[in-house]
């Protein structure tokens, strides 16, 4: 090994109580940060966007207005584990499911039928449209399509 990493302390999370957020775009991004980069490129105001906690043991978020969910797909063989655990925890809260309007999924075509599978699963379970798929951190075209698409979608609501 070159150097030891400082061990992370993650025990700061207190009692399990979801933090309320008023955001139109809620997303999860793992430590690799691809979805975070994609959402950042969309250029929405900071108060319109909320990121789900990185660690499953942290309290999840509680949405207070209609929102669109952006999430990556974890690449697996049989599709198990495609939806990040942190997203499952967030959607297990009924109040959050009541407010979700649609889902946008990241993935990689290298995963054959599992490409953006997390989006299909959330769409099926919550009965909301899979609005868009993008690969890794998204191309410039993906960013424009999603930014303009979401703006139109929110205007029409």
């Amino acid at each position, binding site marked *: *090994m*070159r150097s030891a990493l400082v061990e992370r302390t993650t025990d700061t999370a207190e009692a399990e109580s979801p933090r309320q957020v008023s955001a139109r775009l809620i997303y999860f991004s793992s430590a690799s940060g691809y979805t975070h980069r994609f959402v950042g490129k969309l250029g929405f105001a900071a108060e319109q966007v909320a990121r789900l906690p990185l660690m499953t043991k942290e309290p999840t978020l509680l949405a207070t207005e209609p929102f669109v969910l952006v999430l990556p797909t974890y690449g697996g063989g049989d599709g198990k584990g495609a939806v990040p655990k942190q997203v499952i925890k967030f959607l297990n809260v009924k109040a959050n499911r009541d407010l979700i309007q649609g889902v946008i999924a990241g993935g990689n075509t*290298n995963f054959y039928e599992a490409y953006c599978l997390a989006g299909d699963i959330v769409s099926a379970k919550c009965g909301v449209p*899979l609005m868009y798929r993008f690969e890794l*951190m998204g191309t410039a075209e993906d960013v424009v399509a999603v930014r*303009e*698409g979401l703006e139109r979608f929110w205007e029409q609501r």
Partner: protein
Amino acid sequence: MAEAVKTLDHVVAINWNRIQDDKDVEVWNRLTSNFWLPEKVPLSNDIQSWATLTEDEKTLTMRVFTGLTLLDTIQGTVGAVSLIPDSLTTHEEAVYTNIAFMESVHAKSYSSIFSTLANTKQIDDAFRWSQENENLQRKAKIILDFYHGDDPLKKKVASTILESFLFYSGFYLPMYWSSHAKLTNTADLIRLIIRDEAVHGYYIGYKFQRGVETERAERQAELKDYTFELLFELYENEVQYTHDLYDSVGLAEDVKKFLHYNANKALMNLGYEAMFPSTVTDVNPAILSALSPNADENHDFFSGSGSSYVIGKAENTEDDDWDF
């Protein structure tokens, strides 16, 4: 044998109950649950289909697969192993040993394809061609030079570009055959390799980005310049190699789009923005569909009328954690 690859001077007993980077565990679990062997793919079902190919098409296919064998051999025997001494955690070391082994499985699986479809003379001729092809040997040499170098981050760049870009001039062909309903079992096997390479490129690229974060701005700029220079050098070589292989069947231009598309993904795996504009990454939809049937469907809710959007269907992939 070339000079020895550096190994660790000091080893710490690995403790999987103390994790410094959750990605190590996540990727280890992903790789082990994706484990496969070529024996599980019924390659012999492709024998009849193989007989329908012309001699040129057979020669092309054999050459493509010997080229891929060379890359997998490099990655298994030298590449992934050379990354071990630079690891930040013991778990990262373990992940590289997994990657190295899997690359050896990939390399062996091409031999399974050969022995199923071709005779000894065809196999020997194809291996001889790959040893004599300048452009294939040049790409191997460029990558090997970095693996023998002493810059840990540049090694990761070379490795990610290999995993996420250099294979794809070869991967194109089984996707092409699959889209014509030929060699479909072979294509199934290659898709397993393609899936593994995605995880490898993702992980090595992730470790590269964690390393870059700790560097000063000057060095970060140097690494970025280096990445684009190396990619461009390898790209130019890859274009020549593509012509060497595919001119005989008139597919070179189509393959190049696939190269651009995957070069962009290699850059993204390293944390950089895509380089090739969408005007040259418009991969043949039949190839994209062979790679991922979902990629070709129109899932753009935003550009549609809004009345015919798709609700996902994925009931058979339940995880235990869902409460609804």
